[in-house]
């Protein structure tokens, strides 16, 4: 009896949450277009990913929705099983590099960080991170190269190299399922604001900001593509269009290119600030690295 009452109470609460006008509006935004014609949950290795979470009060969204939800069933399915996820070709490379000695100091990542499944847990969820010595935030790629050049005596990897993509995918995977949780207070506040300014700034001959598509029009089709909220919880991500895995900054550049603007450089202060800001708009979504998108 107690159990029944509890279940009833839970259902009532759940229903109340579900029908809040704002949430209903958000659901309609993507549901109406036949998105959930084949309903699916993102469960990988028996772990359920949070692909839809209630947004905090200060969010421009009422619900935070992972890019996975906006993709067609075929693309969504590819992320359900790591054997079907082509990004794992790079993950395997990253795993191998983790314990490969490189540079003048005779070290590998494992020399200091040992077992990645332990030491790298939660790392992806918290990047970009403040770096006191550098006096600015670092994306994960910056951090990897800092280790390589300053502690291993090895050459920096190029941002979009297979090694860097493999390493960031492998390290990122150790946080899969954990909620995105970036620090935006203290010295990060100024960088967060800089990222926000970039997000709302119109650029290019087509005169659009990130917000025009990803805040004002997500869920709608723009020609053959469905606009998402531009959440970044799955990066680096395997993109069918690229036929390979790619970095978030590559994706940023692609968007700017489309609106006939000159993109910033990968690893630039601008893109790092934008990464921080966009990550903060997805606080609480599960890390899906390495995700699969169209």
């Amino acid at each position, binding site marked *: 009896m107690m159990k029944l009452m509890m279940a009833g109470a839970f259902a009532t609460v759940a229903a109340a949450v579900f029908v809040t006008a704002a949430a209903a509006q958000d659901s309609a935004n993507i549901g109406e277009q036949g998105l959930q014609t084949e309903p699916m949950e993102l469960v990988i290795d028996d772990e359920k990913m949070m692909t839809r979470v209630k947004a905090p009060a200060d969010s421009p969204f009422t619900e935070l929705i992972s890019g996975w939800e906006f993709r067609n069933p075929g693309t969504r399915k590819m992320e359900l099983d790591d054997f079907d996820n082509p990004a794992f070709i790079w993950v395997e490379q990253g795993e191998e590099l983790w314990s490969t000695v490189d540079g003048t100091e005779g070290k590998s990542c494992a020399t200091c960080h040992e077992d990645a499944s332990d030491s790298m847990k939660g790392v992806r969820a918290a990047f970009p991170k403040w770096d006191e010595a550098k006096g600015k935030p670092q994306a994960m790629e910056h951090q990897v190269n800092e280790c390589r050049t300053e502690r291993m005596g090895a050459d920096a990897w190029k941002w979009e190299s297979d090694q860097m993509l493999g390493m960031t995918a492998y390290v990122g995977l150790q946080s899969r399922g954990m909620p995105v949780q970036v620090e935006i207070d203290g010295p990060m506040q100024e960088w967060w604001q800089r990222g926000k300014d970039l997000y709302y700034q119109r650029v290019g001959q087509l005169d659009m900001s990130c917000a025009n598509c990803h805040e004002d*029009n997500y869920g709608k089709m723009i020609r053959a593509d469905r606009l998402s909220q531009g959440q970044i919880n799955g990066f680096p991500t395997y993109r069918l269009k690229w036929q390979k895995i790619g970095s978030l900054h590559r994706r940023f550049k692609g968007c700017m290119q489309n609106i006939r*603007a*000159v993109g910033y450089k990968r690893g630039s202060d601008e893109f790092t600030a934008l990464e921080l800001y966009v990550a903060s708009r997805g606080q609480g979504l599960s890390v899906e690295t390495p995700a699969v998108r169209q």
Partner: protein
Amino acid sequence: MIPRMVWIASACIAAGVTAASAEVVAPDKVMMEDMTVGKSLSGQAGNPDEGRKVFASRKLGNCLACHANADLKNELFHGQVGPPLDGVADRWEEPQLRAILVDSKKVFGGQSIMPSFYRIINDQRTQEKFHNKTILTAEQIEDIIAYLKTLKE
């Protein structure tokens, strides 16, 4: 006799060139009043058949990226970002359509996602190949307007 004929012919050509270029309204000279632009940007009436092509072309108007249009139902993938344009000629007068195409933000407000098709934007990290260029030419915009005027319900 022959020299005189040549003189007349040259004068005609010169006058023709001057007249045509004088009639194109430069992007910074477009007169918008009460969210309307009355005067043709090219100085001529547009061609609806050409306009239909410019409308559909991904490299030119790419209007289908955002707007559905039943008249072009043979083209795949119509966008949903803007309103469908079926019957658009019943809802807007020609001078209003021209104002929307020239600079949508002056009609719909600063939040509109719609590009301004006849405004030069060099100072927003615009790629160099698009400097001092509008998205569409005066003639292409007039052609699109002529085409839109055929979309009645």
